[in-house]
């Protein structure tokens, strides 16, 4: 039972991070390898707002989340916007460079020590009991948040005016422009949403188990989840996250704890060999890049 709970928690983490990869990729064909670092930045922003709004945990959380949205927007407007239309590899490397920059900045601004935002905010993290398994409060919140985010995104993309426009821009940017859609607005929206969901993941993880500068590693591990499901499919990200999380938890438990960092990539390689476009991705994706 505990294993099951662990799998659900890990899958929620991976899924919440993976939807960020999918959002940006689906809309602009760019793989945002700085997602892990942006996620970490969100958590560090919580530290900053915690000291700003000390005593008002809810306000601090809200402010951190809002700031992350703005960060995503700024990253697009000032950096990624210039790379639209360039080679895909150049855009990806730009995100890699951005990630490296953020890592350096975070250490410079906040030092490399482990931080405890939960303590800074003054919120507890008790262990809840479900059946004969334990789950910490913030992990449970994360699972619920993940469900809410996915539900919201599904509805938005399916029925929202801008959601449909995002899907359209992802399918055929030229046609979308011919229909009057401002592509830059769509891309900026995608980046903002992606950074928002990533920051939520980072914040909740930091509240649960502390914050270190190696948080981006988890971001990178969530990437195979997105790819296994299909880089342009939100539903796929959910399924992929479950698969990768299940594989990781089970293999750590039954085989070797050291495997934890490499299991997602083993699953990734297996998927690339068998079905590169993922479980729910569109096949043409391969030829586009």
């Amino acid at each position, binding site marked *: 039972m505990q294993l099951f709970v662990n799998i659900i928690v890990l899958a929620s983490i991976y899924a919440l991070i993976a939807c960020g990869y999918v959002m940006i990729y689906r809309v602009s064909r760019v793989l945002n390898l700085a997602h892990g670092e942006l996620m970490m930045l969100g958590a560090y922003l919580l530290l900053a707002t915690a000291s700003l709004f000390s005593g008002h945990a809810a306000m601090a959380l809200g402010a951190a989340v809002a700031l992350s949205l703005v960060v995503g927007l700024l990253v697009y407007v000032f950096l990624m916007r210039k790379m639209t239309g360039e080679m895909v590899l150049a855009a990806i490397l730009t995100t890699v460079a951005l990630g490296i920059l953020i890592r350096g900045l975070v250490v410079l601004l906040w030092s490399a020590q482990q931080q405890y935002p939960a303590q800074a905010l003054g919120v507890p993290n008790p262990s809840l009991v479900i059946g004969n398994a334990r789950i910490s409060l913030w992990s449970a919140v994360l699972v619920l948040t993940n469900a809410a985010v996915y539900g919201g995104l599904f509805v938005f993309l399916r029925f929202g*005016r801008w959601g*449909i*426009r995002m*899907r*359209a821009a992802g*399918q*055929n940017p*030229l*046609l*979308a*422009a*011919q*229909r*009057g*859609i*401002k592509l830059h607005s769509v891309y900026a929206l995608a980046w903002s949403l992606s950074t928002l969901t990533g920051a939520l993941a980072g914040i909740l993880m930091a509240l649960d188990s502390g914050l270190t500068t190696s948080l981006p590693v988890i971001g990178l591990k969530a990437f195979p989840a997105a790819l296994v499901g299909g880089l342009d499919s939100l539903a796929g990200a959910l399924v992929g996250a479950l698969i990768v999380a299940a594989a990781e938890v089970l293999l750590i438990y039954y085989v070797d704890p050291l495997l934890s960092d490499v299991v997602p990539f083993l699953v990734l390689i297996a998927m690339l060999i068998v079905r590169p476009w993922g479980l729910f991705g*569109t096949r043409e994706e391969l030829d586009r890049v």
Partner: protein
Amino acid sequence: MSEPLLQVDKIEVVYKRVITAVQGVTLTVAKRRIVALLGTNGAGKTTMLRAISGFLGIDDARVTEGTISFEGSRIENLPPHDITGRGVALVPEREKVFPNLTVAENLSVSVARAATGAERRHDEDRIYYFFPRLAELRQRVGGLLSGGERQMMAIAAALMCRPTLLLIDELSLGLAPVVVEDLTRRLMTVRDEMGIAILLVEQSAAVALEIADYAYVMENGRVVLDGDRERLKSHQDVQEFYLGQAGGERRSYRDVKQYRRSRRWYG
């Protein structure tokens, strides 16, 4: 006569700074008129449409000389969404619908200028009135439409942008004559009831001259002939080279090794 809707004045379009695709072309589209742009492959017709709608940048091309004016203001080399926002909508030749969106979603994607929710719904109803077939196919995914349905869908989606000028690239390409006839009839209804002007690029002169009020013939990047429908239909060169009527007797291929008569457009 009031000032024309679209005035293209001696423009020159250059690709990659070295290839001149269009030279010294002047054309006018008046309000509520259907104007056709005829010519064979490579004449520069699609380039003209791209220049007007603002989509030249993708192929590294620019309008290097001359002006394009729409409703009095200059629009050459403006960004595409700016031009669409002023009321020019383009129906492209290829990839005209979003394959993974339904017909209804395809229609809702178009950005309509200054339209409230109620106005949009009214627009949609009007579209379904012009194209009843689309109403039946509301939930059909775009990629599964037939050629004719796709063209209807594309025109409908362009109309949802509330344009004053509709640009259509290759209306009849790949469509059965029956379908084309149906489409042209509907286009004229749309023009009459919505009051829009249409600039139509067509390879098939016969189709174009059925509905156009005025036409230009382009060749190698220049306009070589223009006139209203009657003038073009009766022009010998158009008849021989575009309408396939060799002026009388049938000739066997043995006699026609190359064009016996060179094209004398200025006559």
